[in-house]
């Protein structure tokens, strides 16, 4: 009541006069009573719970696919075998309680980490590529140094004994005779399918898969080594007199060592395809290929660096004031160093993670903590590919629908309005196209045309093929509706006024059948997404490295994958299913809203 009074007060004299003329009844009530057909449709659609749930689900997935890739970028060509088939979940950097505040040394493996405390006890955490890693050898003694590789661990105890566990194939378990005979080892290293050990006298030993890293010692290096680091294809060493050498017989990107640093090097680190060295004046020099910004070091650290560590695409350094800096690839947050409360004693970087241990033995960690939905056989993050794939699947579906709706509306509109011979001809054409077997035809076209064109052209081609083959349905519907509308009086009136035929069809009749078109386009969108997925699934749609939900499932087709790597097919399948179910619910809801008769069903 109070509200009504308020409104009355606020109404102007003009409206009051109008009301007097019209005789009672406020304007607001009148406006509520009259609804355009569109508003009616909208109202009943909003009240349809199933359809609204569909809208929410679809919008959620759609927004995720559009927005999230900006925050979680992905390089479609990126592959990393060390991260292959990692199960979903986090906690790769979660340092065990026993180690926190008591850590002596930590090492990072592909998707797991190992650490030792001051008492020499071994801790393991993260996601283990093989169960053999969990079987720690008994009575190892007091461990003084430890290192983790792709799927094996090498440790050194206080008696100078080298112990290894984890993957034992490719000679990883056969420790060289010299080491077992009592050579005094000071440092061990576990790499990608190989292990290294440095003896006190400066000799470097290696065992494991020697095909990957072909070690050739330049003159005067073996027996004189102080430090070393390795990636998947090179071992770099620093000699006792501060020189750097690449252990290879060929000259390549690693051997392009800057001359001016020779004799002054205090620490070296290797990342994928590049090497960094710290000199005695606190400068950092890098060489190799600048992959993923790994050589874009910040200017302000120069002259203050004391130690360096390299991950797969990032470097971490400690500065002379005890703080930590990192640069390089930031896909998994490798360069987002947390603030430390005390000066840092040791840093560790490996693969995509990093740790820092401060003076109080407190451990900080940053970098790759895990994959929300795991990784596929090429080590690609499934969640990120899912988002990209969603964008691709939806784009292809949407453009295909736009093409088919456009053709369908024109053919249906002209055919329905014109009638007679034109109608007959166009409908025969429609019939011919609709009697083409859809999937076989799409496959054969894609195979023949897609043979000689680029990736982008291929995607455009898929859109066009889908659009060109799926218009007959919409053309029939539009024709039917136009047939019903064209006998109405407003069309006769428009004709009498001399409105052009084209204009009558598309400006007078079409707005009256727009609802039919919208509903059909929605349902067609789901169908096109499904067809695109089916095509990509059997390998005739969008192909690698571009992701779509269909081709993500393609690689998950074998029984081994279905059984062992469930995350590779469950997530794409689930999201595809939810998406098409929601779109179909939306389409059904729209149809019910537009045609109230169908709701009674």
């Amino acid at each position: 009541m109070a509200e009504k009074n308020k409104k009355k007060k606020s109404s102007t004299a003009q409206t009051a006069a109008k009301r007097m003329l019209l005789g009672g009844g406020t304007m607001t009530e009148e406006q509520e009573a009259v609804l355009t057909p569109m508003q009616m449709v909208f109202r009943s659609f909003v009240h349809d719970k199933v359809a609204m749930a569909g809208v929410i689900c679809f919008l959620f997935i759609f927004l995720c696919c559009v927005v999230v890739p900006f925050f979680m970028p992905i390089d479609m060509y990126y592959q990393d075998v060390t991260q292959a088939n990692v199960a979903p979940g986090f906690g790769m950097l979660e340092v065990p309680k026993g180690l926190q505040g008591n850590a002596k040394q930590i090492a990072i493996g592909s998707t797991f980490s190992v650490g030792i405390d001051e008492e020499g006890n071994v801790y393991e955490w993260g996601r283990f590529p093989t169960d053999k890693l969990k079987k720690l050898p008994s009575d190892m003694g007091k461990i003084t140094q430890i290192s983790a590789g792709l799927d094996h661990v090498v440790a050194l105890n206080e008696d100078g004994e080298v112990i290894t566990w984890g993957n034992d194939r490719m000679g990883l378990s056969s420790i060289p005779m010299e080491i077992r005979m009592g050579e005094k080892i000071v440092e061990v290293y576990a790499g990608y399918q190989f292990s290294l050990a440095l003896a006190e006298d400066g000799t470097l030993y290696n065992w494991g898969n020697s095909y990957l890293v072909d070690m050739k010692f330049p003159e005067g290096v073996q027996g004189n080594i102080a430090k070393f680091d390795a990636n998947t294809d090179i071992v770099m060493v620093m000699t006792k007199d501060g020189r750097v050498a690449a252990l290879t017989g060929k000259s390549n990107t690693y051997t392009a060592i800057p001359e001016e640093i020779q004799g002054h090097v205090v620490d070296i680190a290797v990342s994928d395809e590049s090497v960094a060295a710290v000199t005695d004046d606190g400068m950092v020099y890098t060489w190799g290929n600048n992959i993923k910004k790994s050589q874009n070091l910040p200017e302000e650290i120069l002259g203050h660096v004391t130690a360096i560590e390299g991950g797969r695409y990032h470097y971490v350094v400690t500065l002379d004031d005890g703080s930590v800096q990192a640069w390089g690839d930031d896909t998994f947050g490798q360069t987002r160093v947390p603030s430390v409360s005390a000066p840092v004693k040791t840093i560790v970087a490996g693969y995509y993670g990093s740790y820092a241990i401060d003076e109080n033995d407190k451990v900080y960690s940053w970098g790759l903590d895990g994959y929300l939905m795991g990784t596929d056989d090429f080590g690609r993050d499934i969640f990120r590919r899912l988002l990209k794939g969603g964008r691709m699947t939806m784009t292809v579906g949407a453009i295909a629908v736009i093409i088919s709706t456009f053709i369908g509306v024109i053919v249906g509109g002209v055919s329905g309005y014109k009638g007679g011979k034109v109608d007959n001809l166009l409908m025969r054409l429609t019939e011919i196209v609709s009697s083409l077997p859809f999937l076989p035809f799409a496959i054969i076209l894609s195979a023949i045309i897609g043979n000689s064109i680029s990736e982008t052209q291929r995607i455009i081609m898929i859109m066009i093929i889908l659009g060109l083959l799926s218009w007959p349905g919409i053309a029939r519907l539009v024709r039917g509706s136009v047939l019903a509308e064209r006998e109405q009086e407003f069309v006769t009136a428009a004709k009498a006024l001399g409105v052009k035929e084209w204009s009558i069809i598309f400006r007078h009749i079409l707005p009256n059948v727009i609802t039919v078109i919208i509903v059909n386009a929605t349902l067609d969108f789901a169908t096109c997404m499904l067809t695109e997925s089916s095509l990509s699934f059997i390998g005739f749609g969008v192909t690698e490295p571009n992701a779509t939900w269909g081709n993500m499932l393609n690689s998950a087709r074998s029984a081994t994958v279905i059984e062992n790597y469930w995350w590779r097919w469950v997530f794409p399948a689930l999201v595809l299913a939810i998406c098409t179910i929601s779109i179909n619910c939306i389409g059904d809801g729209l149809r019910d809203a537009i045609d109230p008769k169908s709701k009674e069903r």
Partner: protein
Amino acid sequence: MRKGRWLVKRLIYIVFVFFIISILMFAIYKALPGDPVKMMMSDNVKPEVYQQQYDTIRKQLGLDQPVPVQYVKWITNMLRGDFGYSTEYRRAVKDVIGVPMRNTVLLNLFSMVVVFLIAVPLGITQAVKKNSIFDKVVQVITIVGYSVPSFVIALLAIYVFAIKIPIFPISGVKTAGFEGTGIAAFLDAAKHMALPVLVMSVGGIGSIARYVRASMIDALRMDYIKTARSKGLREKVVIYVHAFRNALIPIVTVTTWWLIGLFGGSIVIETIFLWDGLGKMMISGLNQRDFSVVLAMQMFYVILSLLGNVIMDIAYTLVDPRVRLEN
């Protein structure tokens, strides 16, 4: 009388459509990558006789004749069942497609039977018990059934019925090295067919049950149903004879479309389950660039879809005597 004339007219029209499509197929055939003449020639031909030999083979293949003549020749061969020579199998195409065709037809027929046996009674029951809990639950299931792509259902079915509870084989048509006849052979085949048929049926059941339900509800609202009930007919007769017959027209339409799609869709299923059928053969033909096989498959699918149209026309006249046949 009029009905017969209409059917003949439709048949003539469909033959006409067939020829239009066959021209399209011929265009595809001509667009295939690779020069067929060069493929026929051996590599170590001396350059001086190369052109001469090239022309001879070209003439043999009839490629020197004008395109319409080539088309007529091609389509006559196709209609005679001469689909050319398969480079993958090194035999005439018509000799290698027998078994796959039987397998595909078998698979699709079985799925069809399963779908009809389940979808029609399901849809009718839903319509009769409209808005009951049963109806609502089945509606949710059917919408999921027809929305979810078949290959997703296939992966799920493999995971559940072949890996977690290994009761069915993962793939293949029969057990390797299986030598049996009669009932044993049938059981073995049935076991292998179970999963593909299950997967193919889910989508079909979903969409057909929904259509049956919708058209049955429309039919049950009609006045003649009231009349039939007031005459004291049994409810069963009212539903299955009076209502269902009238609900059949939309069902026939959607069924025909589904049938045509079924054979096309079985390509995906056959590749997943390594079912030795036409779809798998077509995919492997495309991958091996064995285009004679691919075209033969394509021809099969075209004929099938046209046949589907004919069946639809005949079915219309059968289920509804009122169908006006001029249009």
